[in-house]
């Protein structure tokens, strides 16, 4: 008997014959009762409490706002996903910002570039969750997983209509269980650690800055 068979046999023997339909009813998850304006306020408040910066702007001004913010943070080079709606905007700011597309596979050479030369990454998002103060990313071939992880600043563009009241509602409306992508991420702020005497230090391993652009 291999390990799998042994473990399963032991569990099944101990399981008893209580009918699985006989399980007690579970109370429902308490869903958010807020209206959409309140949801938005809740979402912004939670993000800001976690030291994220939330900026309201319009889709046409994304590159301009990013350029300003990068100047403020003393950052120079930006990486963006291929085929993203705002990619073309960055051409106008070529003098102030080195913006490059993530158009390479992450091999050894690309790792060196990504870790050592890129200051910031910008991504779109899949949705946002008010009750959790969260931004949901579904990274894909255009916007790879490391784009929101390795650079020390992460800009994320959120459209107002992408905000959902709470997570169970989002899961249900979009039927996530049908086809989950390689990776899904919920992000609630910049990377942080309290591992040294409960002092909260930002930029532990991931981005030190999370800048949310709401359009």
């Amino acid at each position, binding site marked *: 008997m291999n*390990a*799998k068979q*042994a*473990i*399963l046999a*032991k*569990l099944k023997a*101990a*399981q*008893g014959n*209580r009918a699985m339909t006989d*399980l*007690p*009813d*579970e*109370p429902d998850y*308490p869903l958010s009762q807020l209206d959409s304006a309140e949801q938005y306020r809740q979402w912004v408040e*939670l993000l800001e409490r*976690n030291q994220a910066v939330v900026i309201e702007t319009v889709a046409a001004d994304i590159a301009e706002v990013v350029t300003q913010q990068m100047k403020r943070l003393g950052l120079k080079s930006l990486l963006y996903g291929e085929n993203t709606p705002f990619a073309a905007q960055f051409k106008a700011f070529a003098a102030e910002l080195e913006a490059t597309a993530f158009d390479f*596979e*992450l091999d050894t050479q690309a*790792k*060196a570039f990504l*870790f050592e030369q890129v200051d910031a990454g910008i991504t779109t998002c899949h949705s946002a969750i008010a009750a*959790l*103060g969260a931004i949901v990313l579904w990274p894909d*071939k255009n916007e*790879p997983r*490391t784009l929101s*992880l*390795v650079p020390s600043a992460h800009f994320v563009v959120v459209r107002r209509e992408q905000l959902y009241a*709470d997570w*169970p509602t989002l*899961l*249900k409306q979009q039927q*996530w*269980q049908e086809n*989950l*992508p*390689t*990776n*899904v*991420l*919920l992000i*609630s*702020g910049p*990377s*942080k*650690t*309290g*591992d*040294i*005497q*409960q*002092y909260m*230090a930002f*930029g*532990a*391993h*991931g981005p030190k800055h999370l800048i949310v652009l709401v359009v």
Partner: protein
Amino acid sequence: MTFAPESFRDNVSQALKDQQLRQNIKGATDYFAANRQRTVAADEHFEQLREQGRLIKQRCLAKLPELLEQLEHKLTANGIKVHWAQTTEQANETIAQLLAQHGATRAVKGKSMVSEETELNDHLNARGVETLETDMGEYIVQLEHERPSHILAPAIHKNKVEVAQIFDKHIEGLGYTEDVDALILAARHVMRDKFKQADVGITGVNFAVAQTGTLCLVENEGNGRMCSTVPDLHIAITGIEKVVESLSDIPPLLSLLTRSATGQVLSTYFNMISHPRKSGEKDGPKAVHLVLLDNGRSDAFGDEAFRQTLQCIRCSACMNHCPVYRRVGGHAYGTVYPGPIGQILTPHMQGLDKTQDLPTASTLCGSCAEVCPVKIPIPQLLLRLRMFAQMPDKDEKPVVAGQGAGRKSAEAFIWWLWRYFHQSGRRYRLLTYMLTKMRWALPRVIKPWTDSRELPTVAKMTLHQRVKQRQRQQGAKR
């Protein structure tokens, strides 16, 4: 302190004398408890959520073997290979072989208590694999060749002065600084180099979803994401009890976990992994493996009361609120999982012969059960373990390995006597009468009980005699 539960009593004496340690542990546990309290108090539905959490975990345990099969089926369909291990040796061997197959010699690790349980680092180091713990707390602990003293914040036994000294000693070019931001930045730089070069990332798993074949990781730092994204190979290791039935079970459990652990509404990152890198994708590991470890969990599963131990989602609230843990810290227990959850979990992993002292290290105050997000009745399980530690192992199949190991014949004889004298009123009155007459001959010192207690003196008269005397006096008055 010795890393063995048999040394618990000696370790406790040492820990209690270490004022710095006690101050560090108190500071950290106070901080976690206050943060938890703030978030929980703000939510009128928290009790309802706890009840939901308990029932979800109990449902998932009721279906455990089926869910594990479904999980394997789904993960395999998604391209993630599943390995099963009954023992820690099997788990380590599986991982060592995977590394050998991929020619991997540089491993970066995300926080995983299960890998502490298997002592994976030692095993891999012996095979020439370099392992780097990348969680900041784990990193501090690894630099000092210590072990985590808390399941969530491994280095809470150290204050920033101690960490400053450790980093000064180990990180080249840093120098001595107590500026925590500078310390973290220095560690970040060290580890970024390692992430870039690593052949394999090894992480734990907080929840494994059977319905979708998804591995979920909860973290604040981003090192779990690094380990599971940057190297070409990702190996996750977890206990068999971490499987949940469906995606809709995740929101309530995650909310309970982060709020009970640190008071966060949501951790900085919640990372859900369902596939290795697909064709056309530019990053992510090309191969993902999951190792499912039993190590005594199926023994706990075999007893309906002890099965509740497996409801645990590893939030650490029980240790943060435990009056024993808060005074002695995690190392004193001599186990991977310290505090109340460790006291009820470790006997199933190591047997009561080695761990019989652990269930006794409790005042049964009930704080742990009160804060447990999935309502594990920890005090009741401690009592049950105490009972099994004394219960002679007559059955063919003991409920807990090492059952009866705490039984001492002198103690058993004393209790036999106690029972004998309490079984009939006549015997009882005879005993108490004899004791009042023999007061002068009774011992003044009964070691070790009287080391820290006064021995009560026996009265001149028994209670029965007193009552009778009083009745006589009252009768005479009337």
